[in-house]
């Protein structure tokens, strides 16, 4: 089971009232390469991955939910005090009509979240390579958002999240090394 802890993994600071950034950030909330997709992908794959890397998928999958909460915090802070007019100017008019100020699992283009692109192949190498690719795609998304944002506080938090993608990618690469080692061969000393 899971336990919630009443704190963010990393402090989220948003310096400017710029709801347009919320429209971009939602990509990491409900987009194909976002934090929700990552969490669901790893926690789903852990049932059939070789035993020695189950723990890694379990723990990275769990950390992704902490990242999802950070993204949600950014979106919440950027939209909670915005007027309908400001939301409209930020390209969030259609979102407001459908969802008010609530968060919705959608990408930056307004398409609903779908599990269709969360693959689970049951082949350890295929799954871990997908996980490495997922981390690199999420890293790129953070880069594109940073390129569009001049909010220093926000970019600090996004820099933290981007660095986490690098560390996760590193660990998944190590997981590939672990599962390709020959463990059935009897070692003679």
């Amino acid at each position, binding site marked *: 089971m899971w336990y919630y802890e009443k704190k963010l993994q*990393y402090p989220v600071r948003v310096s400017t009232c710029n709801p347009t950034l919320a429209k971009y950030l939602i990509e990491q909330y409900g987009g194909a390469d976002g934090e929700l997709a990552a969490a669901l992908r790893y926690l789903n794959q852990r049932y059939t991955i070789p035993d020695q890397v189950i723990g890694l998928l379990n723990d990275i999958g769990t950390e992704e939910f902490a990242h999802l909460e950070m993204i949600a915090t950014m979106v919440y802070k950027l939209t909670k005090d915005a007027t309908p007019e400001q939301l409209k100017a930020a390209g969030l008019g259609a979102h407001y009509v459908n969802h008010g100020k609530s968060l919705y699992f959608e990408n930056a283009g307004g398409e609903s979240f779908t599990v269709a692109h969360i693959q689970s192949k049951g082949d350890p190498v295929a799954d871990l390579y997908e996980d490495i690719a997922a981390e690199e795609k999420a890293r*790129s998304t953070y880069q594109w958002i*940073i390129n569009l944002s001049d909010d220093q506080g926000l970019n600090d938090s996004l*820099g933290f999240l981007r660095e*986490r993608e*690098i*560390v996760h*990618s*590193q660990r998944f690469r*190590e997981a590939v090394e672990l599962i390709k080692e020959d463990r059935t061969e009897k070692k003679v000393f």
Partner: protein
Amino acid sequence: MPTYRKWFYPFISPFDPCPPLTPVSYETPVQLYLGFQPAGMEQFSPVQALAHGTLWPGLYTPYTNPYLEKRREV
């Protein structure tokens, strides 16, 4: 030590509608080079680790907006 950002100049056509915005960059962060992390790598203090997003300076690959370094060739 490898560089973590690469640049390239794509072919430019005389018929390109926009003035070239070059060079083009892409990131090649540290996980592409490190291999299996060796034991005992130097560490940040806990507060510094949080600020950098990793416990190990050897895994830290920061990012800045590359468009700040590009130029339009008119």
